[in-house]
């Protein structure tokens, strides 16, 4: 229903204009502000591109931990956080492995959107989905 170009395309063009043409015109003390704006735009673009898939994956892993609980991911995440606080998974190696898989995947998923360069700088490749899924699945068993 919406007209083209997509909002993602428009954001990408706006970001290019900002960084390539507008930022060089700004005085040095405002350069950081221009890059902050570009960062905010990049986060919005990456979130839009990523969609809900990785969060749904986390939801499925959480449901594996809480099979009889309600399906709302927010509710499951809250229960998960509360159990981590109490060390609830420490009594079972398989549960502990499953819990850690969720922690890793949640963190990597968020950073892919917020700061993928930070992942790379820490030795994490951008294309480790397959490995993450493999490790995560293994831990659910």
């Amino acid at each position, binding site marked *: 229903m919406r007209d083209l170009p997509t909002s993602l395309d428009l954001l990408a063009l706006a970001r290019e204009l900002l960084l390539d043409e507008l930022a060089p015109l700004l005085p040095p003390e405002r350069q*950081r*502000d221009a890059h*902050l*704006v570009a*960062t*905010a735009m990049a*986060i919005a673009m990456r979130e839009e591109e990523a969609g809900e898939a990785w969060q749904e994956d986390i939801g499925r892993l959480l449901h594996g931990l809480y099979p009889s609980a309600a399906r709302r991911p927010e509710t499951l*995440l*809250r229960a*998960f*956080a*509360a159990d*981590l*606080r*109490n*060390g609830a998974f420490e009594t079972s190696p398989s549960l502990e492995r499953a*819990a*850690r*898989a*969720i*922690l*890793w995947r*949640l*963190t*990597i998923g*968020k*950073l892919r959107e*917020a*700061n993928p360069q*930070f*992942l790379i*700088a*820490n*030795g*994490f*490749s951008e294309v*480790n989905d397959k*490995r*993450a899924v493999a*490790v995560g699945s293994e831990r659910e068993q």
Partner: protein
Amino acid sequence: MLRCDAATGVPSSLGRLEEFAVLHAVHAAGVAVPEPLFACADPAVVGKPFFVMRRVAGSAAGRPITLDPALEAARPALAGRLGRELARLQRVRPPRADLTFLPPYGGPAAAIAELRACLDRYPNPRPVLEWALHWAETHLPEPLPPVLAHRDFRTGNYLVDGGRLTAILDWEFAGWGDPDEDIGWFCCKGWRFGRLDREAGGIADRAHFYRGYESESGRRLDPARIHFWEVYANIRWAVIAMQQSDRFLIGGARNLSTAITGRRATECELELLMLLDPVNAAAYA
């Protein structure tokens, strides 16, 4: 240089008059800081309390300090000097009649409890922080006698001029604390400014920083204690990042810089996972 309160601040920061008193105490202890000149509590003068300190040459910008090739040879000595300065500031110890506004220090357990209380104020769950806090609660080090802690002792908060340290800045978070707290904070990955491999503030190996500290303090550092305080540093930095975005979310401050800082909490969470689950760090990398 004149310092006065920001329009919206982080909850745990000192007021400017209190910061002036801390600056006065550490200056008297021989720490490299801008000389505190006078303070004024009367809001009629500039609209809020303020203090004035002597201007010191140098730049605090983190990336030039860690990345400028011209500073390459000076960095190990800079790290050693920072270690010695930290040991010197820790000679300021309670009780002090001039610092009675600083709350008493309750040890590592109280420090962790304070972070947990901060986290409990957030409506959205943070599983990694809950997990790391639980680890910290179950791995508390033995308390040491408290010292003055800067609590933001890091690259970006000291001035360097020609490769030499000229002053340590930003004392607004200072308080009584554990002697290893500032060491964990200084080495925390969040303050390495593009040189993650240089674990002492992005400027040198830990050994240079540790040697400087140990030579001045006479106290041998324990890696297990530093590990605990580095975990603590990452949890604390995550909470501070969330508090920064609260300036927008709750305080209504229309400031992109502070609003976007909240996203950095996840960087701390990655580091917590790497510190506390190194086997899986290799699996996910």
